[in-house]
């Protein structure tokens, strides 16, 4: 399941909802990405642009790919759009499986996908101005581990 949210997301509630009723799961792995101040840059917020007709289908495809590759019982990706303040969650990914390795790896795979292959565009809003951010070489290398 994929959810795009224009308002702050409640990680505790998302995790509790995800974990409820998973009688066959022996493991849940989850990841929370936060907007960080980033020291000297003094980031105040990020702005997330997305393409409504492209973004959700791309993430749905990635979730299906993860389910085909690992024996997942359930997978969820929640991503903020719009302005996200420093300290707020920008992304939440959770995976559930019978055993931990599949949950860990699928969660890692989905985050690598979201960093470089999901149609989002991230602008850093600092005290000194604004700047669009693109993935680092490490982000592409992380993504390529799964190919």
């Amino acid at each position, binding site marked *: 399941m994929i959810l795009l949210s224009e308002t702050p997301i409640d990680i505790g509630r998302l995790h509790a909802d995800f974990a409820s009723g998973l009688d066959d799961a022996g493991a849940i792995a989850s990841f929370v990405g936060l907007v960080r101040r980033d020291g000297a840059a003094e980031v105040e917020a990020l702005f997330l642009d997305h*393409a409504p007709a492209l973004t959700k289908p791309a993430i749905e495809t990635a979730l299906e790919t993860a389910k085909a590759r690992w024996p997942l019982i359930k997978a969820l990706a929640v991503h903020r759009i719009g302005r996200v303040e420093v300290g707020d969650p920008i*992304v939440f990914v959770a995976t559930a499986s019978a055993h931990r390795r599949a949950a860990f790896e699928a969660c890692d795979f989905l985050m690598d996908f979201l960093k470089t292959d999901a149609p989002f565009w991230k602008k850093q809003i600092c005290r000194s101005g604004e700047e*669009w951010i693109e*993935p680092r070489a490490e982000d592409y290398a992380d993504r390529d581990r799964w190919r």
Partner: protein
Amino acid sequence: MAKVVFYGRFADFMGRERDIAVGEGVRLETMISDLSKENDAFADAVKAPAVKFAINNAVAPLSTVIKEKDEVAVLPPFSGG
């Protein structure tokens, strides 16, 4: 007319969207080349290898011929998470 939609930094350079008249057999690369004449920053950034284009919500190569009523999305390198 075709609709062209710009995302991310490209929207800062070109505005979010516009309608463009399309001639017979015009390819996407020609449309992008014509748009590049309007803005040097766009002209430079759109050449980056990770830039993608979508036509009617499907990623398409620059050789694609644009038709009436097509929606063309100009997509900077993706950056989520």
